[in-house]
């Protein structure tokens, strides 16, 4: 704008000695400035359609009394004010109690799954850092659980956890004689452990993959210096490898946390629509509220609460880990 007026003033005060720039040139300038936006346009459109607009609609819906009667005409649904939130957070009602219970279950599930997956993945990656015979093959083999589609892995575990025909009870009761009666794994308190085991089995190879990639970025001179100082392999891992992996771990743990906390596939395939209360994760609880009870308003309110929680945890996590990283540097 300013440039245009300035150009206009210049033209008035002094007649241009040269002819105006050829239109081809200015057209190219527009293209140059516009090109990056043009390249981004498809991505932005799809992101808007599938992520951004639905999120806004979801927030809007959480303030509405939305039931299946209004599916085709959302705007006609009566307003609920904060009713849906009050409904979801009221710990004296059945819904509020269930939601809070799911929340704690999900927290426990996430801490265990992320912790174990990280531990196994990092441990295996560190143990496989030095070359040995068969390392390549073993690496490939370890990645199979991650490569399997989520539902086939969970279905296989569901079969293994069957009380009368599954491998787990055959192993524990018939082969190792640990139990007199075969326990139920997909009902009652054990279902929580069945869920954790299945999730860890699927998740740890991802940690392994990321840490393996991260290990390759650690400069070799560091190891050479440590070797000259006479540091053994354990000291080397503690004083060089783990600190060097910190930036990788910062992202890895966050990603694992978000995936696990939002996991729907594993419990849904393992238990179906009606999970045992001891393994009722938040995502299933919200799904149940929305699509089984057809209470879209409450489902949306719960989703928004979940989002707020995730944003807070992520922000706090980044704040703490960044500060600690800076303090070390």
């Amino acid at each position, binding site marked *: 704008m300013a440039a245009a007026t300035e150009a206009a003033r210049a033209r008035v005060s002094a007649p241009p000695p040269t002819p105006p720039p050829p239109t081809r040139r200015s057209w190219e300038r527009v293209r140059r400035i516009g090109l990056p936006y043009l390249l981004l346009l498809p991505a932005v459109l799809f992101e808007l359609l599938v992520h951004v607009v639905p999120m806004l609609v979801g927030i809007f819906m959480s303030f509405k009394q939305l039931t299946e009667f209004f599916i085709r005409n959302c705007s006609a649904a009566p307003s609920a004010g904060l009713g849906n939130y009050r409904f979801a957070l009221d710990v004296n009602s059945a819904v509020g109690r269930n939601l809070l219970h799911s929340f704690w279950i999900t927290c426990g599930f996430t801490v265990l799954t992320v912790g174990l997956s990280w531990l196994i993945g990092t441990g295996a990656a560190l143990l496989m850092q030095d070359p040995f015979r068969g390392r390549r093959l073993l690496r490939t083999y370890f990645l199979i659980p991650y490569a399997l589609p989520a539902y*086939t892995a969970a279905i296989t575990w569901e079969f293994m956890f069957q009380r009368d025909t599954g491998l787990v009870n055959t192993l524990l009761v018939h082969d190792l004689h640990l139990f007199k009666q075969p326990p139920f794994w997909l009902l009652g308190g054990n279902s929580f452990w069945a869920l954790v085991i299945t999730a860890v089995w699927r998740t740890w190879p991802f940690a392994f993959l990321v840490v393996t990639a991260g290990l390759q970025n650690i400069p070799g001179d560091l190891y050479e210096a440590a*070797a000259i100082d006479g540091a053994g392999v354990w000291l080397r891992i503690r004083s060089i490898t783990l600190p060097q992996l910190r930036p990788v771990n910062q992202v890895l743990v966050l990603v694992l946390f978000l995936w696990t906390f*939002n996991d729907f596939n594993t419990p849904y395939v393992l238990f179906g629509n009606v999970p045992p209360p001891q393994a009722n994760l938040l995502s299933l609880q919200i799904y149940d509220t929305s699509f089984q009870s057809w209470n879209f308003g409450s489902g949306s309110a719960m989703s928004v609460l979940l989002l707020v929680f995730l944003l807070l945890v992520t922000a706090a996590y980044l704040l703490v880990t960044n500060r600690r990283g800076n303090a070390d540097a």
Partner: protein
Amino acid sequence: MPDRSPSRSRHRPPMAPPPSFVWTRRIGLTLVGLLTFLPLYVMLSSSIKPLQDVQAGFEWIPAHLTLRPYADIWSTVPLGHYFLNSLIISSCSTVVSVVIAILAAYAVSRYRFPGRRLFSVTVLSTQMFPGILFLLPLFLIYVNIGAGTGVQLSGSRLGLVITYLTFTLPFSIWMLAGYFDSIPRELDEAARVDGNGPIGSLFRIILPAAVPGVVTVAVYSFMTAWGEVLFASVMTDDSTRTLAVGLRNYASQNDVYWNQIMAASLVVSVPVVAAFLLLQRYLVAGLTAGSVK
């Protein structure tokens, strides 16, 4: 694998590991190997047992071997149909997603423009949102678009393609932008001198140098679409059902055909697992390049 290239040798810690480390390694990797092995063995061995044997309790060594489950899976449920649906949906969403991601990543990597940071942050942050959050509104939007314009998105393959391709865009753009950043600018300039425009240099120079990154992103997109359960369970009907949902249909009211379920699981896993394992060295290279950024 990276260990083959000569420059890697300097990354190798110079001393032979002590026995304590070697034994920890043997025991640790054996345990992890067994944990990985059990479900795979169950899948394979149960898929070649007759139904009575599977229902009688788990046996480590199958008493009777049969390939019947592999023939029966196609008639018990319309598995071929589900397979085709999954294949169409996953392929289309992968192709479109990769093309869109390449264009966006090129812009992010090679241009400085107002809004660049906003775009990167917004797109990446959508990756953290739980699917359950926009499942419901997206479902309603699709239903309303269908009611308003007649374009059926809910219950159609097109709806799932659009949904899935967006799921993987953030990761793909981030990964490819990191990859493009690692390609020297001099290559672009050389391409300009040869008379290529920006798009020409993208396709003739940058893309060929970024094949590992593109392959990584494509495999990731395909795997995501192939394995997705949540949206498939709400947004498909009988004619567009994908494998993720269809495999549940092997349970009838009286019987659960576990041998067929295991056979079908194996059949639907083999294509993606094979592709993933064949291309995993690209994946490690791609992740490494991405994490350098």
